[in-house]
């Protein structure tokens, strides 16, 4: 299990490839469900040219770890990987990667979505968007279900 907050751009698919090479997943994992959140160039009808993601170092990692623990109680998971970007970023930049390995697909699908939704509602991150003429804090996440 790995949780990391990244201050520089990362390639989620390359990270996933690297992590997936772990020998204990070989032949055991039948299912890998993953979600990648990417920065859009528009939000709520406005063009967004840049974004800055703030977080609460320490609490963020602990909250994500608690979320993964909860998922491991509910589903038989083999492994999980969560990477999250902070700092200044541009449209199309990857923001978050959530990946879950399991023997079977139902556990992988459901726990991946569970982790992602819990992260969005509980992990202490805050987005500040740069629009054409001003900046603004995103005031809440939309519901994902």
């Amino acid at each position, binding site marked *: 299990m790995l949780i990391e907050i990244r201050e520089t751009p990362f390639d989620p698919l390359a990270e996933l490839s690297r992590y997936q090479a772990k020998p204990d997943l070989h032949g055991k994992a039948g299912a890998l469900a993953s979600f990648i959140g990417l920065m859009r160039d528009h939000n709520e009808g406005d063009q967004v040219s840049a974004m800055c993601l703030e977080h609460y170092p320490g609490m963020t990692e602990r909250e994500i770890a608690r979320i993964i623990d909860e998922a491991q109680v509910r589903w038989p998971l083999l492994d999980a990987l969560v990477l*999250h970007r902070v700092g200044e970023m541009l449209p199309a930049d990857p923001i978050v990667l959530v990946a879950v390995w399991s023997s079977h697909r139902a556990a992988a699908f459901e726990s991946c979505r569970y982790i992602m939704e819990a992260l969005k*509602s509980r992990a*202490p*991150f*805050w987005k500040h968007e740069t629009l054409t003429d001003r900046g603004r*804090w995103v*005031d*809440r996440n939309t519901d994902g279900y």
Partner: protein
Amino acid sequence: MTIRVRYFASLRERVGCAEAQFNTGTVTTVATVWHALNPDLALPGNTLAAINHEYATLDAVVHDGDELAFFPPVTGG
């Protein structure tokens, strides 16, 4: 006792600082710390609080050495 207080994101901007220290001799809750430090600013209704990196309610008791954080709804992911 001494409490380390932290503010994040839009709430940090409203309060005007990222970090403060609170000293008191009596038993204190999350809400009491806010009001003592920000007498002119009502606690926004959607504010979240955490004690030592764990979510806490406004009536939770804080202890000497605790880190208490106030922040707006989270918007990561």
